[in-house]
């Protein structure tokens, strides 16, 4: 979600970095642009102003002037302040209470409470907790049914629906059932409500008093605009929020609401909703997100993702070959397969440092996972000998391969060229070794014009 904000900021920072000295005017100009970038990312105005003021104070002070690379220093200050705004550490779900622990989900209509309740249940279940889902939404048609279905899909308990029962009574009954049947956690999904709706806010406060939840999670849409501050503040004052869940983070919203709400409530963002499936809930890591916002990449998440999906043996085999400076088309094919397993290509590229700037190019290049399929088809249409020794592939072989894979000779050429570049790169990596890779970062390995090369 943060890609476009990171694009904007990295443009601003490009002007700063690499310059010997910075005047106060340079910094002021850069900060004006930071301000606009943050506002366009829907960070609330009050939060933006405060943020810019803090950065400015540090930037024009001693810190920058004494620094050898003042531009870098400013970037670092912005980064630090972003993390400070987002919170320094990820916060775990608090389950320290006598079971059943009550978790109360609150938020506006359509923010994603019910889906998030289901996701949270799946997550807790994976931690070997016995979870009960109960819907207190007696207003939206079929809301209770929706949660029932989600409970079924998640394989967790669900409080039987009693028609006509009011929310506070439902909550009490849920806790009672939780105690009786030995549940570890009871997730109470409330109806969407406006923070200015006195009556409904009083109702949810009553529910809170009745069940004394250890967690009251405010569920909000990552696309929320300036109103995020108002609603977060109101919910926090009237109900008492312990954490925030940001949903639809898989959209292309710039997600400034995250900064706003954290700044206004002081409550940590605990989870990010990353998709419609029940396992699409991620723990929020402020430092990583800040890195992503600034286009510094989120290498930690990338590595974690890779660890989870890439087969160890295959990766080791590949690493050995790379060390030897060898990289044939079979290796390329196996790499494609690994990448495919990791999911959406754009998502992965977004985690690489320095890619933020290229995002526009990537968009034009229309990178999609189909492209991988086509490239795989081309390699699969080659003979084993050809794959090991691409130099063999001349005009007539190319024609055959193109016909076999349903592509054109140009496509085959493009793939071969790409392979050549990758092989060259692998040789470089082999020479650099592990240390070199660390020093230069992954960004150093990406050849210029990456976007074009992938394009068709």
């Amino acid at each position, binding site marked *: 979600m943060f890609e476009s904000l990171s694009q904007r900021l990295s443009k601003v920072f490009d002007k700063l970095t690499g310059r010997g000295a910075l005047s106060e005017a340079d910094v002021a100009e850069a900060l004006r642009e930071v301000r606009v970038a943050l506002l366009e990312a829907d960070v609330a105005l009050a939060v933006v*102003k405060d943020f810019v003021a803090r950065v400015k104070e540090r930037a024009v002070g001693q810190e920058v002037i004494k620094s050898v690379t003042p531009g870098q220093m400013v970037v670092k200050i912005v980064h630090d302040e972003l993390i400070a705004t987002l919170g320094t550490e990820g916060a775990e779900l608090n389950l320290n209470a006598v079971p059943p622990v009550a978790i109360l989900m609150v938020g506006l209509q359509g923010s994603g409470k019910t889906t998030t309740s289901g996701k949270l249940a799946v997550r807790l279940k994976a931690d070997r907790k016995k979870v009960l889902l109960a819907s207190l939404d007696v207003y939206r048609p079929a809301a209770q049914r929706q949660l029932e279905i989600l409970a079924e899909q998640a394989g967790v308990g669900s409080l039987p629906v009693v028609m006509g029962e009011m929310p506070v009574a439902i909550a009490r009954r849920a806790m009672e059932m939780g105690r009786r049947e030995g549940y570890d956690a009871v997730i109470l999904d409330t109806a969407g409500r406006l923070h200015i709706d006195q009556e409904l806010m009083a109702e949810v406060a009553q529910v809170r008093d009745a069940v004394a939840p250890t967690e009251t999670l405010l569920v909000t849409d990552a696309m929320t605009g300036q109103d995020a501050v108002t609603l977060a503040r109101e919910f926090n004052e009237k109900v008492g929020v312990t954490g925030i869940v940001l949903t639809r983070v898989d959209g292309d919203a710039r997600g400034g609401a995250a900064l706003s709400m954290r700044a206004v409530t002081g409550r940590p963002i605990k989870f990010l909703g990353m998709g419609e499936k029940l396992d699409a809930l991620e723990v929020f890591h402020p430092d990583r997100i800040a890195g992503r916002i600034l286009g510094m990449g989120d290498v930690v998440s990338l590595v974690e993702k890779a660890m989870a999906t890439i087969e160890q043996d295959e990766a080791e085999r590949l690493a050995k070959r790379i060390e030897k400076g060898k990289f044939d088309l079979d290796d390329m094919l196996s790499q494609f397969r690994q990448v495919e397993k990791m999911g959406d290509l754009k998502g992965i590229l977004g985690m690489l440092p320095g890619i933020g700037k290229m995002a526009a190019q990537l968009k034009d290049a229309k990178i999609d996972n189909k492209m991988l399929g086509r490239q795989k088809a081309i390699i699969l249409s080659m003979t084993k000998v050809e794959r090991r020794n691409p130099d063999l592939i001349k005009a007539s072989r190319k024609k055959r391969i193109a016909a076999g894979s349903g592509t054109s000779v140009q496509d085959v050429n493009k793939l071969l060229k790409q392979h050549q570049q990758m092989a060259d790169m692998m040789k470089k990596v082999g020479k650099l070794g592990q240390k070199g890779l660390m020093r230069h970062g992954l960004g150093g390995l990406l050849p210029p014009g990456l976007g074009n090369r992938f394009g068709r």
Partner: protein
Amino acid sequence: MSKTGLFGRLWGKADGRRAAQPDEPVAAEADLDVQSIPESGPPGGAAEQAVVAEESEPAGKAGWLAKLKAGLSKSSSRLTQGITTLFTKRKLDDEALEELEELLITADLGVATAGRVTARLAKTRFGQDVEPAEVKAALADEVADILEPVAKPLEPDVSRRPHVVLVVGVNGSGKTTTIGKLAKHYRDRGLSVLLAAGDTFRAAAVEQLNVWGERTGCPVIARDTGADAAGLAFDALAEAKRRGDDLLFIDTAGRLQNKSDLMAELQKVVRVIRKQDPTAPHDVLLVLDATVGQNAHSQVEVFKDMVDVTGLILTKLDGTARGGVLVALAETFGLPVHAIGVGEKADDLRPFEARAFARSLVGLD
């Protein structure tokens, strides 16, 4: 500007506890509604009646007018307070303009649009001594000028039998609720309406539309969750033709505009409908949530590109979000805005009126 300046006061007031001036009511929302309505409403007594009537869930004209104002003035009350504190007769100088621009930004107009609107205001009034009401009126005029061309009601051509309306949007924007309200509206006008429960993805979405069908007395074409949405739309259109319905509303699953596979699925729905009626869908409504920020641009752009959105509906205007992004959208895309949603009930759908929206946005009426 120091933090304790305008915004210290503004935010302080907004959270209702650090109210600086004694004449500002602490719980401003309710008082403001009541104050603001008599000022502007139809002569005296009628407005008061309307306020009373609003609480007891009324039908009829006075009722909805009052409700609309109540809903909209909630959206604008904070902005109003801001402007009022700003301009108790002062010079419209650079600083004042900047503060005005920032107030528009907090209404989600976006940096560029807020800048343009204030620049236009500056052209005519810069350096003049201005009063709050005057500034508000001028600001509302600027905003209304932008919105006027897009305020067009949805006018189904019933001779098509059926006029097909596809309703699209991101998750949780309020598509199903809006369809329920639209169904009620056209049923009350005596049209026969068929609903198609095209959200075959989300759990219980079909049941949700079924309830709306019962409430409004409109039949609902539905299949099980997981069924093919395009096939359902096709069948619904055939059924509407057979029955000779005036209107067919097709609900769709919420989808984020950057999910290309889901957007392709939506295009398929359109393609399949066209097999039966090449002119359909006659309207494609994009439902936007008023709390949405600048992402609305991306939503409109992509949905328009993919399925030729013909009009917008803005929902959830009964909260504190003011939906100011609509102004920016009108500038960029010029798509008609057909209606606004101001509550969860079947009759909480209102025609979009540019002047009223603009005046409410800046805190008049």
